[in-house]
């Protein structure tokens, strides 16, 4: 078992807690950089898509996993990002200028929606965000000047640094770079006072308030930050799809994002990547399984959403900490071997909780 001897406060602040961290994460980045040497275009495209999903997942994770606010309409932000990006590119704004504008626009949209909507809590908030998803979809259909309506909007694929977005290797590197940047940004937010305030709101609003956290402000901020990350993912998604239509940003995409964070593990940034890998490959897996199922089941059109729902329920019931939680358990098993106890992760019943303060 590794024992970290702490002699400086910086050791608690730094991202990498020990040399092992540094080694493994550098190795991971190295492998990811070298992937285009081994994989063909199809798989690179898939992994680019997973990177995009991860960025969107980070957005939703900050909102739901860390601030404890549910959102069932996050595809709206993907849509805002994608349409804004496509609109800007169509009007001749270069890629490097468009991305920051997209981030700012989605941040502001998040704040504007967040301020009224976050007066609601729990179930009501979930319903309101669900409605938000539907409203956004309709706005994308009706606001033809901006979105092209049901005809759709082709996404220009401009040259950037002398490379084209049609080149899947280049696009893969762009996505990977943005994922790494987004990851660092999220880690930085979470290790600073704002991130702690989010966690405080999740665990006890009343205590957060009495410690000086402005609930309205920080909830709106969380929504805005979440919107900014998801908007960025939307901009990249626009390049990935190449042609935007309103029905891409439907409820099913929102639920995919929700599935992503639940399967990955609520309240962990690792979870967003694990979850993205899972939901990224799941449709392929289901497509393969269809061939082996009896045709009466295999050719059913609603098979995919049904399986998504089933998996969501399965994870909430049997692995509430998600894939990342399972990974932690396996790691601890080997660290403590042979003294690991299953009870370590059992949730303790709390008898002192009540609504009285």
């Amino acid at each position, binding site marked *: 078992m590794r024992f970290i001897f702490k002699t400086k*406060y*910086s050791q*608690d*602040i730094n991202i990498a807690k020990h040399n092992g961290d540094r080694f493994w994460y550098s190795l991971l980045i190295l492998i990811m950089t070298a992937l285009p040497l081994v994989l063909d275009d199809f798989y690179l495209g898939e992994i680019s898509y997973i990177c995009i999903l991860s960025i969107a997942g980070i957005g939703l994770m900050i909102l739901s996993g860390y601030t404890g606010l549910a959102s069932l309409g996050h595809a709206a932000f993907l849509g805002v990002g994608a349409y804004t990006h496509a609109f800007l590119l169509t009007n001749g704004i270069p890629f490097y200028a468009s991305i920051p504008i997209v981030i700012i626009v989605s941040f502001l949209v998040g704040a504007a929606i967040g301020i009224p909507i976050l007066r609601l809590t729990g179930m009501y908030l979930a319903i309101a965000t669900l409605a938000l998803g539907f409203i956004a979809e309709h706005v994308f259909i009706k606001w033809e000047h901006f979105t092209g309506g049901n005809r759709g909007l082709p996404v220009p694929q401009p040259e950037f640094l002398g490379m084209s977005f049609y080149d899947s290797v280049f696009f893969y590197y762009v996505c990977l770079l943005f994922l790494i940047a987004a990851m660092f*940004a999220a880690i*930085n*937010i979470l*290790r*600073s*006072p*704002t*991130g*702690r*305030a989010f*966690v*405080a709101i*999740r*665990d*006890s609003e*009343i*205590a*957060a*308030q*009495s*410690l*000086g*956290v*402005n*609930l309205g402000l920080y909830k709106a*901020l969380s929504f805005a*930050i979440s919107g900014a990350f998801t908007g960025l993912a939307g901009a990249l998604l626009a390049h990935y799809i190449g042609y935007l239509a309103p029905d891409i940003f439907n409820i099913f995409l929102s639920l995919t994002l929700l599935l992503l964070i639940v399967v990955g593990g609520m*309240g962990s940034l690792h979870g967003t990547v694990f979850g993205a890998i899972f939901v990224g490959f799941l449709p392929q897996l289901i497509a393969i399984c269809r061939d082996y199922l009896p045709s009466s089941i295999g050719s059913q059109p609603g098979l995919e959403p049904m399986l998504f729902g089933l998996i969501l329920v399965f994870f909430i019931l049997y692995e509430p900490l998600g894939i990342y939680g399972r990974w932690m358990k396996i790691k601890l098993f080997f660290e403590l071997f042979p003294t690991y106890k299953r009870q370590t992760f059992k*949730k*303790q019943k*709390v008898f*002192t*909780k*009540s609504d*009285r*303060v």
Partner: protein
Amino acid sequence: MSLFEVKNITVAFGGVKALNDVSFGVDKGEIFTIIGPNGAGKSTLFNVISRIYEPSKGEIYFENQNISKTKPHNISKLGIARTFQNLELFENATVLQNLLLGRHIYKKTNILSEVFFTPSARKQEHEYRLKVEEVIDFLDLQHYRDTLINGLPYGVRKNVELARALCTDPKLLLLDEPSSGLTNEETIDLGFWIKDIQSLLGITIIMIEHDMSFVNKVSDRILALNYGKILASGLPEQIKNNADVKQAYMGE
């Protein structure tokens, strides 16, 4: 002039008056205890002070400033910290993170400097940590820094909540039943700590408490409430021998 003053506070929930025309003052450096049977309105009083409940009538003054209209999240900035009757800790965070939240009111960084974690953000973290370490040393929490609250025994959790309140560097500390659920030894320790908070840190304390021997040991003055009204207030001996208080507790 007192440090803290409550003037004619009335809180009504529908027809029930949880507090009825309550007035008292607390001097700087005092340990002021509020006692009373269940439902007397003690916790309601605390919730009015920390602005969770809106009083129907009356005013609250802190350092000669009327705080009856202050926003709840600004109360701690004035220098009033509190603990809760039923522990309101951040369960899925470590002790250290809980305590660092106590420094939230001193936050100077904005979201941009946090996204890039600029040197100023790092410096601020160091400053937070220095104060937190002081409190950790004061309350003997060294063993628990990196433990999740989930896995801590009740007594330690109580202690962490007290520590979190101290991290805000308050002038006035509101303790809601600090000794409930503690063992005998823990209660004795708590008594010493409360005395130390008063004498070493110079913090004024208002405390709600049921354990009368503990109350008599630490308090300078006592206020007895019943059914939202003040029964008596004065020195511990006076309260002990007060006929109304005996009546409320024993029911002669």
